[in-house]
């Protein structure tokens, strides 16, 4: 009796599971048919497990890359743990993960440490995730607000408290600004978005932002909200509110244009990618290291310097040949146009410009097995 019931119940269930697995595999394969071509370029058949950790900003994009890469290489498992940029770098340096995602490039101390994790070579950094940060606001009757970095800094530091302050009126000669109180909303949790936003105000704000740029909001005051969704909710529910968030998450909220040179530029993926193009590499890095100091004060037309650039950190050489191939395969898929457009579709990020993508592809291509 028992045996028959086991057979009648479990066997069909197992078949069902197997069938559904096969079906989903088919579905995923069809969806990302184009991505297969990029990853399939590598002549070696890839298999094994790849572990990464880091930036939570990259989480959605990493999900897209995982599914794209795994459906092209069915024997590969990619794991990405969104522990946060600092945690990702720490785990990578301790040799716990094969690659890390980080919203900021490594400092000199970390670079020196990376030699331990990478068989004596310094780790490389490749930009893989670029996202414009929008200034979102909720102010009745005003739908194309213009703010210079200096005005934004004065608003977020609490120096300007009314919407019809002369400084804002000077930025918006045509708008009818009400005398409402300004409620600046910032992230109450630690985040790379805060770090990039404060960095922009600090560099482009003509001295109006006096606090150090930091991923923890450095000023006491203003309204704090948890996560990007929390900021969006607070701005939506309040009156006279203004906050900052990933442009892709702005939803129905109005976004402000920022001053670049003498022009006003609205947040856009192309504008963000353009800034990264003209940003300078950090001095004194290895040849294939693409760490960049984002040019916040650019005056280039249509550039949007308020953006978050996130990096992939990996070793230039890996002890194990299979691991080296795996890292190389996954990273080249990420910086390929297929990978970048997959992330743009899922996470709303800005695809790398063709020049940057080429450089990144060349850097990733040099990843190899240790020759010892």
């Amino acid at each position, binding site marked *: 009796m028992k045996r028959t019931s086991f057979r009648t119940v479990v066997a069909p269930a197992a078949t069902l599971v197997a069938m559904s697995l096969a079906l989903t595999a088919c579905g995923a394969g069809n969806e990302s048919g184009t991505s297969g071509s990029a990853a399939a370029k590598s002549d070696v058949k890839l298999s094994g497990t790849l572990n990464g950790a880091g930036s*939570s900003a990259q989480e959605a994009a990493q999900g897209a890359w995982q599914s794209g890469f795994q459906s092209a290489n069915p024997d590969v498992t990619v794991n990405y743990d969104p*522990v*946060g*940029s*600092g*945690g990702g*770098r*720490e785990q990578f340096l301790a040799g716990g993960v094969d690659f890390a995602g980080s919203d900021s490039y490594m400092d000199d101390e970390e670079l020196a440490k990376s030699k331990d994790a990478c068989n004596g070579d310094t780790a490389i950094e490749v930009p893989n995730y670029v996202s414009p940060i929008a200034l979102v606001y909720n102010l009745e009757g005003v739908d194309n607000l213009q703010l210079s970095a200096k005005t934004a800094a004065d608003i977020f530091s609490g120096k300007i408290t009314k919407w019809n302050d002369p400084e804002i009126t000077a930025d918006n000669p045509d708008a009818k600004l009400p005398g409402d*109180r300004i*409620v600046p*909303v910032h992230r*109450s*949790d*630690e*985040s790379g978005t805060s770090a990039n936003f404060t960095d922009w105000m600090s560099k482009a704000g003509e001295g109006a932002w006096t606090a150090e740029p*930091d*991923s*923890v909001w*450095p000023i*006491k*005051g*203003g*309204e*704090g*909200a*948890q996560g990007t969704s*929390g900021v969006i*909710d*607070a701005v939506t*529910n*309040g*009156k*006279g*509110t203004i906050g900052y968030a990933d442009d892709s998450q702005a939803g129905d909220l109005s976004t402000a244009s920022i001053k670049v040179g003498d022009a006003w530029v609205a947040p856009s993926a192309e504008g963000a990618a353009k800034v990264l193009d003209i940003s300078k590499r950090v001095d004194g890095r290895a040849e294939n290291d693409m760490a960049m100091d984002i040019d916040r004060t650019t005056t280039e037309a249509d550039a949007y310097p308020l953006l978050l650039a996130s990096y992939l950190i990996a070793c230039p050489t890996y002890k194990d040949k299979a691991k080296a191939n795996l890292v190389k395969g996954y990273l080249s898929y990420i910086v390929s146009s297929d990978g970048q457009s997959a992330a743009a579709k899922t996470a709303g990020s800005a695809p790398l410009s063709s020049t940057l993508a080429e450089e990144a592809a060349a850097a990733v291509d040099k990843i190899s097995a240790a020759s010892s």
Partner: protein
Amino acid sequence: MASSVAPTRSRAKQRAGDRIFAGATRVAGVIILVALAGVAVFLTVEGFPAFGADSTALFGASSFVGFVWPLLFGTLLAAFLALLIATPLSLGVALVISHYAPRKLARPVGYAVDLLAAVPSVVYGLWGSAYFGTKLVPIYEWLEAHLGFLPFFKGPASATGRTILTAAIVLAIMAIPIITAITREVFLQTPKLHEEAALALGATRWEMIRMAVFPYARSGIVSAVMLGLGRALGETMAVAMVLSASGVITFNLISSTNPSTIAANIALQFPEATGLKVNALIASGLVLFVITFAVNFAARAIVARAEKAHQ
């Protein structure tokens, strides 16, 4: 051992079931103590390095005390306000259920209150930040305009309603079912003879409750309030979502610049924390642990003394 046991017990035959049950209860008791000790040891060991940490690990504060004091202040303020609201309300609800309402009505009301305890705190958080807070904005504006001379309502009133007062009200709603459930049971335990004696002496119903029910239930009420306080002190998710935290120390209850609480701060900062920052957060957890203990002990001591004086 057996010789010291009273003769009546030693004569009774020790059955296997008895021994197993006694053992099981003992194990349960020990496990709870071990778990508590485990938590305390973990918090102390992991939190210890943070006491000498510098400002980068302490989220910009210059010393550990400077880091944890505003959080502790916010925790105690929010919990105190929550209990200030929850205690009278809960006692009222419990009295209605135990003494005032007809039985037909009392039961459904009791069930409804118990149901409040089953709502997950993240749902309270969503409700508090997205709906309830915004509904309180006009009230906060009124308070600022008319009672602005008081330091509590100095304003400027929050435009989103995500203030420490909103957080305290949400905490109160979360504490009410706990306090109500226990006090209700304690009120029902009041000896009928005491109640009838009071009524027979000409007391009104309210006087009867004051003379017979409350004195009898005093320690039970304190226990209930302490459990409610535990929830208010330790609540994490709802506060993290509702409260607009800025790490200041202020008694201003209606502005958008509020002190954070220890538990909410851990929830907010832990995901991106690394190295010594994690130790700092764990150390703040240790402070919360100690404070909760201290508050509980103090309350027990006060009740014990009052009971003694009463007898």
